């Protein structure tokens, strides 16, 4: 390897900027100082994206559709696809109503007297970084707000099951933390066994860790886990997923890997519900 030749690299500027970048990184990781900046940037990006789509690409595609006389059919197809997604979610809601809203009358009374317009709201996904979802620890998606921002803690579901919960909202978009995010934890149960399933940072995979000497339970691959409702956020009794592997770690703790049944990659629409607001 050749020796480093003397050059006119300005070391002082590099040193200063390295310190500045490290400070930014520390502040963001430790105190989330730049979250607002990132959200504003994301909102701007989404808005400009929409404007470009509606002003440039849509007229061009409409022009094409007109010439081929398929415009109405394509619109109809799109609206039917959207309707189908919404009705799938509503079906899920109807099928699981007993679990989702145990105290339905009280909930409706509460909603009538509160700012929440309805007990459920359909929302469309504004952005979802699928690359980050597959590669990294942070699993977040963003929803377009309806008339009002979604309330923090709202449960987000699709037609397959629970996806996550609302963590943050601004005027335009709301952030959803998915249950597979490394910072997320959801209380689960199966028969008489309870555990907190942490996100693993891998798509749809949750992890329950327990000391086998304290809980002499036996599990098998494919065994179902349900939400226990203990955290006060998610409703009780909903199927979350099933065991895909059982391992033992170095500390002799048993690790159950649970694969969630809800896949966030399948639909563009989700529903936000507030099942625990009556408490």
């Amino acid at each position, binding site marked *: 390897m050749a020796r480093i030749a003397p050059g006119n*690299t300005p070391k002082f500027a590099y040193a200063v*900027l*390295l310190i*500045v970048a490290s400070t930014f*990184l520390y502040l963001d990781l430790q105190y989330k100082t730049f979250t607002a900046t990132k959200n504003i940037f*994301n909102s701007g990006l989404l808005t400009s994206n929409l404007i470009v789509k509606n002003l440039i690409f849509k007229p061009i595609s409409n022009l094409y559709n007109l010439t081929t006389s398929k415009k109405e059919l394509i619109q109809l197809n799109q609206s039917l696809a959207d309707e189908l997604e919404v009705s799938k979610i509503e079906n899920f809601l109807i099928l699981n109503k007993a679990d989702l809203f145990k105290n339905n009358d009280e909930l409706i009374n509460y909603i009538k007297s509160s700012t929440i317009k309805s007990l459920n709201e359909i929302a469309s996904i504004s952005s979802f970084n699928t690359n980050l979802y597959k590669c*990294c620890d942070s699993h977040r998606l963003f929803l377009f707000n309806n008339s009002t921002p979604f309330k923090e803690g709202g449960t987000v579901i699709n037609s397959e099951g629970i996806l996550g919960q609302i963590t943050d909202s601004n005027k335009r978009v709301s952030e959803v933390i998915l249950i597979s995010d*490394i910072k997320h934890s959801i209380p689960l149960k199966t028969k008489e066994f309870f555990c907190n399933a942490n996100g693993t940072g891998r798509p749809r995979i949750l992890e329950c860790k327990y000391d086998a000497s304290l809980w002499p339970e036996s599990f098998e691959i494919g065994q179902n886990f349900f939400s226990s409702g203990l955290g006060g956020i998610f409703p009780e009794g909903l199927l979350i997923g099933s065991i895909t592997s059982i391992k033992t770690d170095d500390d002799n703790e048993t690790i159950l890997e649970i694969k969630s049944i809800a896949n966030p990659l399948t639909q563009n629409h989700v529903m936000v519900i507030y099942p625990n607001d009556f408490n």
Partner: protein
Amino acid sequence: MILTNFLKILATIIFANYLDSKINFFMVDYYLSFSLGFLVFCFWVFSLPNNIYAVSSFIIGLLIDLILGSPFGLNALLFTISSFIIHSYRYSFKIFSFLQITIFFAFLSMFYLGFINLFVNTANFSYLLIFLSFFLNGITWISIYILMNKFKTRFYR
């Protein structure tokens, strides 16, 4: 460096990052990860050492952080460090063979991926991914070098 040139450089890096996100979605399953955006940035620093110094590297890194949604300052830090390393070796590159230069940038992108994964993928950090990506990014560097040289001669003034 004039603003239009800076914007051209920025556009190529953003485009390469966009490609990155599209391709890596499928590649991650096979323990492979491209770092096209970073390699394009390295190409510009390598081929225009008098134009891209600390401040431009820092600004490009910050913008990439905002676009990718990664921890603020992470890409800024890594781009600035990489820029410093490339500048330190700028005269040595003249006596390096193309193979040596390729290995140098493959190593650099391996460290970049390693650091990025340390911050955003701590729980599932994979040495295999980093190791395999060394070869992948080495091969990618060759094609980026050829393509970006063509782009540079045609569009960069």
